[in-house]
């Protein structure tokens, strides 16, 4: 009890100090817990900072940062960034077993940035931006260069406010090999206003988060509407963390989950700097939830109407008598999962180290509606694609895409970029195949472990999927964060992005000891062959006098001293 009493005056004090100077930034935090049909549990954290300021205005030099992290603010103003999306993911999202995620992300690291129209050298800004971000997030983002950057022409439209979208200002890159570990989580947590000391971020303990099937942390920065009338812009920074805990490794096979089991922590207070701090638990399939709360909310997200139990952490009574909140969730039985309407897979076919075939399979599980999808493929230059072998078949019939944008690769300069708008027939499987040939790399271009293989980044499938339930197009301030990430323009469809698996291809690996062997062999041949020939031609033989016995040598010494000619 005493702990609860101490914490509430703190909240009152900070709110009073806020009233004295009008705060132009606000912070909201949210956790959504969704039990999945396979017995796993999906937890999605979202931390949002909204700041009413314009970084790109010349006259106003921003020097006072309160909730918005200074390192990111300086990056935005220095490089004239309009939108920045970066994600670090460990594991692959299994759409067929888990449904659609709230925030999709590909395995490894992904960075896509929209620059402002005033930028004259986009490539230079991009290179410096990747280096700065690699320092902020302790990741090897400096490996992003022109050989793995593409400029998509139709995918990755800005998720924020804006009208003109000239794709010359967009850059997209992925690093499928990038490892995510505590060293990436630490600086990510430091960007939060409360750090990892208070609020929902106390649950972010790395030993539990990385012992999961899927872990993804992301930072999304974009300009959004400040209010419902949408007359002015505000900067929004969203830090999202999605994690799926496995039934067998974390819960010993029992479909009983609690906050303590998932995160090895319980909640004791909300972040004092947050205006709203909520936990939403998905109870649509009627699991057993303890403690029960009277607050319920319904939201339509990803084409499905779901009911959530809401826990408001800014209210002291949520924490109960023990001053700590530990949610217990239990469910049994298998009910039907809503089948995800869009799903994609990708694999490499073929044998040997010379040629191969990339197959991308897209499934449309809608029973009667057809809809178009935009498939974007970025393949590194060392897999030389033969576009004349590109085939798109649906239901074993040829399906001609209505838009194809192909930019061929330039060896060691640029990767392949293939974007296609394909109309998917209802309830069908569409297969896109293209043949490729593996190139020979120079021996210095191989990684220290070349026999592991080389990664090809995930394909991105973007689509407006027809929704069974009417989506909410109104923008309200107290909308839960997980439903307001993607702007909804029309009621009948929702935007979804599906990432396929990354590919791992083996390139023909040379024997790296060969330069050493060649040098040894060549030097030996030259020494033995040419050397002996040279000796034969240029060596002269001289008759050598046998060495004198000791007495004669002594006598010679005395004669040399006397200055007299020596003995023979």
């Amino acid at each position, binding site marked *: 009890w005493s702990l609860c009493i101490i914490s509430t005056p703190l909240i009152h004090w900070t709110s009073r100090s806020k009233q004295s100077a009008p705060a132009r930034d606000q912070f909201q935090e949210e956790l959504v817990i969704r039990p999945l049909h396979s017995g796993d549990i999906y937890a999605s954290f979202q931390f949002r900072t909204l700041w009413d300021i314009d970084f790109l205005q010349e006259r106003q030099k921003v020097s*006072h940062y309160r909730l918005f992290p200074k390192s990111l603010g300086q990056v935005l103003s220095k490089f004239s960034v309009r939108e920045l999306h970066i994600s670090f993911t460990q594991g692959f999202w299994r759409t067929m077993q888990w449904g659609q995620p709230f925030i999709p992300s590909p395995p490894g690291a992904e960075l896509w940035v929209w620059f402002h129209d005033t930028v004259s050298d986009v490539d230079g800004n991009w290179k410096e931006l990747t280096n700065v971000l690699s320092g902020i997030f302790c990741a090897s983002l400096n490996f992003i260069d022109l050989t793995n950057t593409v400029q998509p022409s139709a995918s990755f*439209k800005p998720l924020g406010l804006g009208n003109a979208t000239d794709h010359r200002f967009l850059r997209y890159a992925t690093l499928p090999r990038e490892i995510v570990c505590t060293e990436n989580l630490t600086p990510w947590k430091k960007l939060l206003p409360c750090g990892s000391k208070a609020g929902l971020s106390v649950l972010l303990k*790395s*030993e539990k988060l990385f012992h999961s099937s899927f872990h993804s942390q992301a930072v999304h920065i974009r300009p959004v509407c400040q209010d419902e009338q949408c*007359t002015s812009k505000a900067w929004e920074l969203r830090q999202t963390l999605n994690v799926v805990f496995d039934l067998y490794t974390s819960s010993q096979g029992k479909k009983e989950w609690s906050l303590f089991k998932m995160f090895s922590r319980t909640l004791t207070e909300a972040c004092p700097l947050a205006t709203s701090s909520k936990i939403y638990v998905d109870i649509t399939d009627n699991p057993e939830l303890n403690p029960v709360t009277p607050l319920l909310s319904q939201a339509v997200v990803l084409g499905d109407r779901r009911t959530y139990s809401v826990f408001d952490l800014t209210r002291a009574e949520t924490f109960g008598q023990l001053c700590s909140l530990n949610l217990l969730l239990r469910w049994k039985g298998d009910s039907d999962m809503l089948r995800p309407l869009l799903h994609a897979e990708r694999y490499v076919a073929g044998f040997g180290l010379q040629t191969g075939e990339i197959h991308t399979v897209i499934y449309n599980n809608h029973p009667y509606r057809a809809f178009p999808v935009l498939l974007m493929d970025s393949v590194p230059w060392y897999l030389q694609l033969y576009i004349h072998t590109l085939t798109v078949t649906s239901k074993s019939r040829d399906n001609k895409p209505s838009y194809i944008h192909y930019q061929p690769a330039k060896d060691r300069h640029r990767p392949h970029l293939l974007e296609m*708008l394909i109309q998917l027939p209802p309830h069908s499987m569409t297969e896109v195949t293209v043949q490729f040939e593996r190139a020979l790399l120079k021996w210095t271009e191989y990684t*220290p472990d070349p026999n592991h293989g080389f990664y090809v980044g995930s394909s991105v499938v973007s689509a407006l999927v027809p929704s069974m339930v009417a989506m909410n197009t109104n923008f309200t301030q107290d909308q839960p964060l997980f439903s307001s990430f993607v702007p909804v323009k029309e009621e009948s469809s929702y935007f979804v992005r599906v990432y396929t698996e990354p590919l791992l291809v083996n390139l023909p690996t040379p024997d790296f000891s060969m330069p050493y062997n060649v040098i040894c062999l060549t030097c030996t041949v030259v020494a033995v062959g040419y050397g002996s020939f040279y000796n034969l031609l240029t060596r002269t033989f001289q008759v050598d006098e046998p060495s004198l016995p000791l007495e004669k040598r002594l006598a010679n010494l005395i004669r040399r001293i006397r200055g007299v000619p020596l003995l023979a």
Partner: protein
Amino acid sequence: MDYYNLMRIFAFIHLLVSIPHGYSNYVETKAGQFFSSGHTNNWAVLVCTSRFWFNYRHVANTLSVYRSVKRLGIPDSHIVLMLADDMACNYRNPKPATVFSHKNMELNVYGDDVEVDYRGYEVTVENFLRVLTGRLPPSTPRSKRLLSDDRSNILIYLTGHGGNGFLKFQDSEEISNMELADAFEQMWQKRRYNELLFIIDTCQGASMYERFYSPNLMALASSQVGEDSLSHQPDLAIGVHLMDKYTFYLLEFLEEVHPASQANMNDLFKVCPQSQCVSTPGHRTDLFQRDPGSVLITDFFGSVRKVEITKDTINLTSPVEPPIQRSGSGDIQIESLTYVDQLPVAEIIHQKPKQKDWHPPDGFILGLWTLILLVFFQTYGIKHLKHIF
């Protein structure tokens, strides 16, 4: 009686006078000791050069030194940590996000707030030498730079697989002892260090410091030339050896050290004698100007700040209020801003082709124009040129 009393009083007064004098002497010697090292900041460069899961122990070595150095006060901004492979989140690690140094998983040296500056493929000989000499590309972030000055004490720790005169980086390249000595000479000439402590835990580690020739260098190695450094103990659950012997006993020694400790370098030289380490650790102090017995461990491993207390008051300037900018009092933006369409199908299909870069005219076009001009001048003659232009 009076005489004796007087003597006693005199002796007492003499004692009273001499005590503060003796005390001030004591304070002066202490102060002298305090400011004798001459450094104002501490840096650490900790490098693990081995890749692959079976070299878990090298990562654990580096992380245990990182942990000690952080515990004794050096902040992350002054530590350049280079790990050539990721062991903590490796798929073969049965306990993800942990790296253990003691068997039975007693001590997790990876911790909860580690910041690795160079990881994976970035740990190369070139990057290591660039970090030491400061010759990095201008876009390198601050956390990847060694921003030391001439009053910095630097600790450099290397571990991995090595041989007589070289250290192997990531199974594909090596750094020789001559390159390292030259790098330190560059650092000396550019005044990038005040004193430098070099510790290396590899096989035949003493060969790496044989060629040093710059002043103010002290070096320690885990084994002499011709000897192998051995690993300590395996953990049966993880399946690999967790630490090397020398760094294991070094960690045990450093766990006893706290920021105010007076342990000096002579104690560090005694760490891991041959009975424990099997190899003979070596050290080199001939290039170092101070006596190793007077060098504190915290001079290199910790970041003990020298504080001068002042009794003067300092007036701080009043904070400047930033002027609250209003977005133009006159103009009212009536038109509301909208979000961009995520998948505008019609727009995409009818997208104008991207503006192609200008290329010089093709051979055919050039030939065509030449033909036209030739025919023109044939018919009309050059002298009519001035009428046309």
